C-alpha cells in the first residue's frame, strides 16, 4: 500500500534535509519511521529515470537545499566567511541549517540565530571570538536593512527640547538601530577587510558599535564606552536628564568639557538619525 500525501511529503523532507545527503536521509530513523520500505527499495517511492537512479534524483533536491541556503549565508556574512575560510564556513553553515531549518516563508530571517550558533559551536580561540563579533555586526546589518522606516528628528526638533523638559522627556530611537557590545575591535577589522586589506587578528579589546540606517544606507560606527551606555539608557526609555546624569557620574572633567562631550555625542546621533521622536 502506498503512503499517503502527508507521509510522502514528510518523508521527502526528512530525506533531503538530512545534512549528510539523501542516502543517509533515506536510512535515517525519521525517514524509516515514515516509509520503511524506502530504505530497502528507494524505487518503491521514487522512480528512476533512464539516466538517474531514485537516490540520485533525490540527491538533486538534497544538494540544492543546502547549496541555496549556504549561498544566502555567504551573501549575508562575507567577512565572517573570509575570516573562517570558505570551506570551514560552508561546513558550519551546513551544521547550522541542519539544526536550525527555516520556519519562515521569507529568507531574511534564516540566519537570525547564526551568530549565537557560532558562539556555541566554534572552538575557543581569538579568531573564533572575532568571527562571532563580526557575525553579530553582519547580522545587525541585515536586521537594519529590513527594519521599519522612521523619520529622524530634525535639528530644530532637538533644539525645541527646553531645559525644563529634561526631567520628563524620553527619546525614541530609530527602529533601524542595533547596538552591539563586542569583545574585539571587530568593526575596524571589517572595515580593513572591506577595503581589500588583510588585517591580522587583533588583540581582544571591548568595543561598542552601533549599526543604523540613514536613508537606505546601512552604516556602522564605533562609540565610546560612556557614549554607548548613554545611548543604551535612552534606548531603554530612561528619562533624558537621568540618563545623562548616570552617564557623566564620576567624571572628573570640567562642566564645560562635559557639556562639549555630550553636545558632540548628540550632534553625532542627530546627524545619524538615531532618534525619531520624544515622549513624556
Amino acid at each position, binding site marked *: 500500500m502506498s503512503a499517503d500525501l502527508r507521509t510522502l511529503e514528510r518523508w521527502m523532507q526528512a530525506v533531503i534535509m538530512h545534512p549528510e545527503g539523501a542516502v543517509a536521509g533515506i536510512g535515517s530513523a525519521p525517514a524509516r519511521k515514515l516509509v520503511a520500505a524506502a530504505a530497502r527499495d528507494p524505487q518503491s517511492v521514487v522512480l528512476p529515470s533512464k539516466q538517474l537512479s531514485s537516490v540520485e534524483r533525490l540527491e538533486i533536491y538534497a544538494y*540544492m*537545499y543546502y547549496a541555496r541556503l549556504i549561498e544566502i549565508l555567504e551573501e549575508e556574512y562575507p567577512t565572517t566567511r573570509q575570516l573562517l575560510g570558505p570551506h570551514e564556513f560552508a561546513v558550519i553553515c551546513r551544521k547550522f541549517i541542519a539544526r536550525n531549518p527555516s520556519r519562515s516563508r521569507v529568507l531574511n530571517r534564516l540566519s537570525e540565530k547564526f551568530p549565537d550558533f557560532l558562539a556555541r559551536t566554534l572552538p575557543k580561540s581569538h579568531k573564533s571570538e572575532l568571527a562571532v563579533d563580526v557575525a553579530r555586526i553582519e547580522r545587525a546589518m541585515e536586521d537594519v536593512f529590513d*527594519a521599519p522606516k522612521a523619520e529622524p528628528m530634525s535639528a530644530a526638533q532637538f533644539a525645541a527640547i527646553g531645559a525644563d523638559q529634561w526631567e520628563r522627556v524620553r527619546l525614541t530611537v530609530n527602529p533601524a538601530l542595533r547596538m552591539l557590545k563586542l569583545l574585539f575591535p571587530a568593526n575596524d577589522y571589517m572595515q580593513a577587510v572591506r577595503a581589500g586589506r588583510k588585517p591580522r587578528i587583533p588583540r581582544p579589546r571591548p568595543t561598542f558599535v552601533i549599526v543604523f540606517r540613514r536613508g537606505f544606507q546601512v552604516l556602522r560606527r564605533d562609540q565610546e564606552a560612556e557614549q554607548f551606555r548613554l545611548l543604551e539608557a535612552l534606548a531603554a526609555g530612561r528619562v533624558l536628564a537621568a540618563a545623562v546624569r548616570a552617564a557623566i557620574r564620576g567624571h572628573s572633567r570640567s562642566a564645560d568639557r562635559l557639556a562639549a562631550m555630550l553636545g558632540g555625542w548628540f550632534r553625532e546621533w542627530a546627524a545619524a538619525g538615531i532618534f525619531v521622536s520624544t515622549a513624556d
Partner: protein
Amino acid sequence: MGPGQLPFLLMSANIRQSQPPPNRWGLPDLGLGVGLRTLHFRHITEKWPAMDWFEIVSENFIDTEGRPLYFLDQIAERYPIVMHGVSLSVGSTDPVDFGFLDKLKALSKRVRAKWLGDHICWTGVAGLNGHDLYPVPYTEEGLRHMISRVRIIQDYLEQPLVLENPSTYLTFAASSMPEEEFIARLAVEADCALLLDVNNVYVTCRNHDLDPVAYLDAIPYEHVVQIHLAGHTDNGTHCIDTHDGRVIDQVWQLYARVHDRAGGRATLLEWDANIPKFSVLQQEVRKAARFRNGTRRVAA
C-alpha cells in the same frame, strides 16, 4: 512613463491586434516583461527603460521596509507589476497560512498587482520551509488536496491564483497520472489560472523522458494568463532550472507553439543567476516579439 518605453508598447499594440480569444478571466496581455531584480533597481529608476511590465518575487518585499520596497514603490508607479511567489506551498499538507495570505494581499494592494501567483508544488511541512519547489505525487489524493487548497486561497484572496508548472527532478512511484494531466485538471476543477513556464516544460520533459509537445497540447489554454521563459543548465543526465542564461532554441520552438495555441499572453523572461546588464535582458526578451508577431517561425 519614460519615452524609451515607446518601442515596447508599440510591439504590444501590434500583438494585440491579432490576439485569439483571451483567458477566461479577461486578464490582459501585458506584453513583454522581465523579473525585477535588486541589481537593476538603480538603472530602472534612473533611466526608466523600455519594458512593458515587471514581475516580482513576492517574498522579497514582505517583512521588509527597507530599500527594496522604496524602489518597488517607484517602479510600480510607472510599470504594471505582477506578483509571483515561491513559498505559498499550495501542495503542502500543513494548514493554510492565512497570515501570509494577508501579507500577500497587502503587498498586492500596495503595488496594484495585475495578478498574483506561485507554483504547483509544496515547499515544506511540519512548519519548516525548504525554500525550494518540491513536486507533489500526481495522485487523485494529491489532486483533491490541491484543488481544495487553491479554492480556499482564491476565496481568501478574492482573485484567481496564477499557478506555475515547476521544473521537476523526480517522479513518485505513487503517481497515477502524467504531470500535464494533473495540471490541466487542477486548473479546470479548482478554476485557477496558469502560468505556463515553457522552460520548465522543457526541463521536466528532459528529466522524465516525456514529449514536451504532448505536454503542451494537454494544457487548457483558456486558463493560461502568463508565460515564463528562462535559461537552464544541461548536465547531460538531467537539466536544472538555473535561470542563468539565454533561452535555448528548443524552448523558443515550444514558445512559438504555445503562442500558436494561446495567442498573446503576458510573457516574462526570468534571469536570476549571473544576472547581466539590463540591456541584455531587454535584448533577450525582445526575441519573443518576433514569435508573437509571426515574423519568425521555427520548425515544430
